């Protein structure tokens, strides 16, 4: 597999930052950065990362099931993550999540038919004092209301 020059450079650096012989450490970071480019953790990617880090593909498989941010199926172009944990729950996170389900017409971890959006009810993502919070891909949105979420989704639709 080949990746973009920027990702190749990142991979090259990742293989040097851990102690000699400990390149297994680069497995999770490689998967995290690569899935953004590839779309998700594919079989091919698993084998590629295993080869580059000098581990068995099974050792890569092992971590995929554990980390909630590693996805084996493609997400929407915009992955909408709504937190409903305690601080968000107290400030309307649950209503926001229900609203997002209705607006997008999809359930938890589902993707819209056009592939534009996916939705996930997530655990605390560290935005408690500015709750309720939503993260779209890696962008945080604070003090989100149902109206604000609708506007955000509309804007993303226009962006495509």
């Amino acid at each position: 597999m080949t990746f973009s020059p920027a990702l190749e450079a990142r991979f090259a650096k990742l293989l040097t930052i851990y102690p000699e012989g400990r390149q297994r450490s680069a497995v999770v970071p490689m998967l995290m950065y690569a899935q953004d480019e590839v779309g998700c953790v594919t079989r091919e990617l698993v084998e590629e990362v295993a080869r580059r880090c000098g581990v068995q593909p099974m050792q890569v498989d092992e971590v995929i099931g554990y980390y909630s941010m590693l996805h084996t199926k493609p997400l929407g172009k915009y992955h909408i993550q709504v937190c409903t944990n305690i601080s968000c729950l107290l400030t309307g996170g649950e209503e926001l999540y229900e609203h997002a389900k209705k607006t997008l017409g999809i359930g938890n971890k589902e993707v819209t038919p056009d592939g534009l959006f996916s939705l996930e009810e997530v655990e605390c993502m560290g935005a408690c004092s500015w709750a309720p919070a939503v993260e779209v891909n890696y962008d945080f949105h604070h003090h989100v209301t149902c109206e604000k979420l609708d506007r955000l989704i509309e804007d993303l639709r226009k962006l495509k």
Partner: protein
Amino acid sequence: MLYNEPNPLETRVLTKRFGIPNSEKAEVYVANGGYQAFLKATGMPPEKIIEEVKVSNLRGRGGAGFPTGLKWSFVPRTSPKPKYLICNADESEPGTCKDRLLMEYDPHQLIEGMLIGGLAVDSHKGYIYIRGEYRYLITMMEHAIDDAYAHGWLGKNIQGTGFDFDLYVHTGAGAYECGEETALLDSIEGKRGVPRMKPPFPAVAGAWGCPTLLNNVETYSAVPNIIRDGGAAFAALGTPKNGGTRLVCLSGHVNKPGVYEIPLGYPMLEFIEKFGGGVRGGKKLKAVIPGGSSCPVLTASECDIIMDYDTLAKAGSMLGSGGMVVIDEDTCMVKAALRIMRFYAHESCGWCVPCREGTTWLRKMLQRFHDGMGQASDIPIIGQVSKNMLGRTFCALGDAAAMPTISIVEKFREEFEAHLDGRPCPYEHKPAMALA
């Protein structure tokens, strides 16, 4: 722009540079008094650095509150093995959002704290383990690190002192459990984040089997202030054995939620009033989770206390990670307990049975209760199952799930009783929606 208005009543030590533009630039940090503590520390014997940290009464800001200086003294600095320095930036305790700000608004303060840690334990390589959701911070931290290298604050022979230190960022990938220090070590080694048997403690056998110093972002960020102004000055800000200030993340039903820096020992109710602007909508206070969702909840009548580690422990709770969640009178505590348990059941790594089974069954029981299908006999069982997890797991996740549940069952038993006999949740207009 800061996420919330600072409060003039804050004691700004760690946050004093917050809001200065271009904080990722080393020269901006230096122009604002930065890296002076590191230079001072290079002239101090390592024992003296550790002594200052001990004198400061700094205690771990990640949640456990262990004395930092003591932790530093456990690292065998004469060991022939390489020694590693790790910063835990896997901030994921529900209610906690402070480390984010420390990395975003003053990344070099963290770098400097780690450099001083490196001097103290003779380590030359460090990693900052940042949770995957904080991708923007990973980018910012990488920029700050690159700039520190470019200006000679990292790398070989830093500022001509003869001290070498390399620092890298490692991304997490979504796992609360990896905030537990030994699970974090497994995670950084490229494995599932499963906790290790202790002892040996990470100070002796940590990352890749080598001595490792592991602290939270806020803990390392406090260190430059301690070395610059002296441990005694930092200690004097707080109460005996509870030195300094800390960032409290106020959330929930308050008028002005936000992250505020206050000295240890600040009165809790006064904090909610003067910083939080009181409970939203003029409602009455029902309960407070003082330091992240793993802490036993305090009822309103128990909140007339000062906030430091020892006082909270005496009150049967914990200061934890500084995530303070305020709950008003219109909140269903069964639902709060359920939501907290859903979280722990989701995050349990499954390594040990009491936690894996306990959290799952408790989630189911609480769900059934909230759906109006609970039985009176379930109430003591919820408490009993929780108590059976307590202290019987490899790491603190089992305790973290048990402690809030035990406290809610004991302190708000009447709310459980109000859900009995198929009655809908008294705090909702319609029967609760299935959550799990």
